[in-house]
């Protein structure tokens, strides 16, 4: 199951040239560019790990691509996303975020039904991979 998240989730995965252009767009807008990775694909997982520090004093997307290449070397079997954080007053939030890397195999999610009080049924999704401990989930 191909996971989609963030901006461009309706598009095929971005090529490196397209990623670079988006990173440059963030830089040109004065947003800090962040690289994050995780092996917990759940859409509600907000705790992605940072790869290095936010990049806020760079001028060219080559810097982002260099870090991305290194992150992929270390965590190429996980999800990696790139985000642009606007620190300006009143915004202070992520303006753009999209996936730039995914594991080669994505087993997807199981649907869990829980019988609750009365005749209620609670539905939840669980990623198959999270049965295994962190760091041992893909590949």
């Amino acid at each position, binding site marked *: 199951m191909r996971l989609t998240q963030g901006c461009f989730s309706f598009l095929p995965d971005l090529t490196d040239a397209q990623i670079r252009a988006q990173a440059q767009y963030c830089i040109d807008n004065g947003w800090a560019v962040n690289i994050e990775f995780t092996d917990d694909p759940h859409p509600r997982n907000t705790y992605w790990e940072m790869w*290095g520090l936010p990049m806020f*004093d*760079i*001028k060219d997307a*080559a*810097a982002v691509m*260099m*870090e991305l290449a290194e992150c992929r070397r270390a965590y190429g079997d996980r999800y990696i996303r790139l985000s642009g954080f606007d620190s300006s007053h009143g915004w202070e939030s992520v303006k753009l975020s999209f996936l730039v890397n995914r594991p080669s195999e994505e087993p997807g999610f199981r649907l869990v039904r829980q019988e609750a009080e009365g005749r209620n049924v609670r539905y939840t999704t669980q990623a198959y991979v999270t049965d295994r401990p962190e760091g041992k989930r893909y590949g």
Partner: protein
Amino acid sequence: MAETIRSYGHPGITDPLSCERSGGGGPSATLSAVANQPALGLPTEFIDLARELTEAGVEEVLTELDDELIGLAPVKTRIREIAALLLVERVRRKLGLSSEPPTLHMSFTGNPGTGKTTVALRMADILHRLGFVRKGHLISVTRDDLVGQYIGHTAPKTKEILKRAMGGVLFIDEAYYLYRAENERDYGQEAIEILLQVMENQREDLVVILAGYAGPMEKFFRSNPGFRSRIAHHIDFPDYADGELLAIGELILAKQNYKLSDSGREALAHYITARKQQPHFSNARSIRNALDRARLRQANRIVRSAANLKITAKDLMTIDAPDLLASRVFGQDATANSPLSDETESTFD
């Protein structure tokens, strides 16, 4: 590809390409000889290099360089040569004649205050205008910015700087301090290795300029052949002659809306001769520092005389002989202990 080619059909302008392809009997004969040359399908119109030059706005930078920097004739010549090379390279690129990004890393050698940093800034501008760096900013660093204090500290530090410099020029002043021959476990080596790797693999992302004094630089290159082989242009900055230093002084003052009185000019000339004999002389920078102190003395002189005299705008603009002659460079006299006398040069740098 044809639309990217500039062809203005000026018959008077020589075309490096048409010379290259003028020999050979017809297209098919040449085709087999140089099979993978992409230029062969291209038209043979003339290329207007002059127009390319104006379009890139490089001539402006070069003229500015000529106007704003005194002397430095050999440096200016080299920079013009490099600019010409880059211009031709740029046109060749447009025609698909070159694929590899050219090596543009440089080394600037010369004594302190001979204009290395100033020229590096201009170089960044030239490279940007010609499209060889994308942004054209200059990040100036020394060993301390690149090399860490403990294990695992250096690589992130160096990479941080490299990332900031991407799209522009990384200027490493006194580059030889990166390498400490006496300590083989020195963290400088780690920084050097990262630099070498990026200089080789990311040539289109940034240009590195190493700067320093000629002697130690030479030694540095000898112990780090990797650097020498990655550097395309070595430029040597000569010391300034006395007359040039005087002209530089006047230029610096003019930029700040000051000028020398006739006797002031004479005093500065004397100052230059005297200052050169003393330790820590650093060419144009010494002049700049001397003039900063002269401005201080001038202000003091004017304030003290303000009670008795009417001050005009001209007075505020003029640096006079006493403002310079009070300098300690002219011997240990009564002024030596006054707060306005020269300290050793280095404390002011």
